[in-house]
């Protein structure tokens, strides 16, 4: 991994996430990802869209610092990703990934507990995070007592509780039913508007990516590379948008790009 020192003027720009020539290779399984370049502006909402196993989750985990890239350069919020402490990043996994032995409150408080914040200070922030996802009354509940959608909300609250600059979501709503998914999509957009965080959303759903994000990055499979970028330039995102011709057109465009990206794998 190439480490490059950046002067503060370089990172004072609006780039929240910057990947340059990032690759990930696994022993015996060849190159899974890249090389890929990616720039995400501060406050931007982008989606990584690609077929299953295209390395989009790998890319997200590299940004989070959960796995190290084989080569390339990763910058998140002006810092090298290998030096990340969780403060700057919130991560939501595909499953809720809650501790079954702990109450909702304790689950949401976990990131604060781990960074040594006193219970008194933490409690206010936990209340705040729970209120944001509409679960104020469920603090004492245990994860198994909640529905799938509610568990995902707890997971979201936990990611928000550190007030991170960047929110990374790895197919968070893939396992939910459609009604719940639509509702959480809207809630996520509301959160994004009110908090102004940078969001990277990984999904294999064309419709979800177009509905949510300002920019869709379509990825090829094995190795995962950026194939196309689609800017979704619309003002309001609500049920009207979801049923509009404009939305359908964007979806067709994204579907075509996704089909091309999948074919490229077959050719190579």
């Amino acid at each position, binding site marked *: 991994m190439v480490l490059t020192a950046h002067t503060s003027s370089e990172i004072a720009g609006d780039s929240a996430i910057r990947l340059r020539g990032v690759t990930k290779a696994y022993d015996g399984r060849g190159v899974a990802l890249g090389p890929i370049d990616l720039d995400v502006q501060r406050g931007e909402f982008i989606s990584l869209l690609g077929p299953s196993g295209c390395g989009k989750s790998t890319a997200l985990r590299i940004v989070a610092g959960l796995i190290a890239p084989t080569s390339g350069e990763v910058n998140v919020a002006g810092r090298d990703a290998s030096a990340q402490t969780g403060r700057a990043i919130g991560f939501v996994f595909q499953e809720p990934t809650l501790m079954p032995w702990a109450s909702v409150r304790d689950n949401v408080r976990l990131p604060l*507990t781990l960074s040594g914040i006193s219970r008194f200070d933490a409690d206010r922030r936990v209340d705040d995070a729970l209120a944001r996802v509409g679960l104020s009354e469920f603090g004492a509940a245990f994860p198994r007592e909640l529905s799938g959608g509610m568990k995902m909300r707890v997971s979201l609250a936990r990611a928000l509780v550190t007030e991170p600059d960047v929110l990374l979501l790895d197919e968070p709503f893939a396992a939910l039913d459609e009604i719940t998914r639509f509702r959480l999509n809207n809630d996520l957009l509301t959160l994004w508007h009110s908090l102004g965080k940078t969001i990277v959303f990984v999904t294999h759903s064309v419709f979800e990516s177009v509905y949510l994000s300002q920019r869709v990055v379509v990825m090829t499979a094995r190795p995962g590379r950026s194939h196309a970028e689609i800017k979704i330039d619309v003002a309001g995102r609500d049920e009207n948008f979801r049923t509009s011709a404009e939305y359908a057109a964007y979806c067709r465009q994204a579907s075509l790009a996704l089909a091309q990206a999948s074919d490229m794998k077959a050719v190579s």
Partner: protein
Amino acid sequence: MSGVATDAARGVPLSRGVISRIVLPFVVLALSIFAWHLVVSVNNIPPYVLPGPALVAETLIQDWPILWSSLLTTLLTTFEGFIAAAVGGIALALLFSQSKWLERALLPYAVILQVTPVIAIAPLLLIYLPQQTAVVACAWIVAFFPVLSNTTLGLNSVDRNLAGLFKLYGASRWQTLRYLKLPAALPYTLGGLRIAGGLSLIGAVVAEIAAGSAGSGSGLAYRIAESGYRLNIPRMFAALLLLSVAGVVIYMALALVSHLLLRRWHESALRKES
């Protein structure tokens, strides 16, 4: 009339559950005791071959002072062995989870201790250790392995994504242990402890019998051996009865502790959905 009938019908599901779980075992117990009594009285079996249930009960009451103090001795040994097994098993599992090298170096010896029959080790331990220590050591040897292997399994069963989350938030080794690994391993450890409770009683009894043949001791197992030499068969039965009851009580106590600790979150402790 019809009102009474429906009331009775409504009462059926509840009483059926009570019957099958509580009443049924006692009916079986009463029937077997009666059958035992019949066999002894009809065949005129002398008490030094097979004493009847009434005689056993009588002996239990008559010899209560001796049997009670012996029971306390055995239970104390069992308890010490169990505590040693719990502490030793969990501590070893934690050490193994922190260092693969240590696990590779020591695990074979833990297995050897486990597979060597304790009845064969007990006489040796009695030579080298003071008697009470040797007896506790025997209880420990039999009981610690299920705690060790179950806790190890639990520590290795941590959810990968949760482990990733702890890494993401920069958790220290201690924090990961305290907030993630130990709670995740708890149901497994409790399962191991439940087995260890019964096993430490077995270990204590085996060691007492070995020690008893060496000529001293006062536990229940020693009473059984001693009564055997004297052909005091009713007392053997009474002591055996006390041992079984002790084993059942130990198991139930540990099951209760396990239930209380897990009831809010673990599948094993939850009621079946109706």
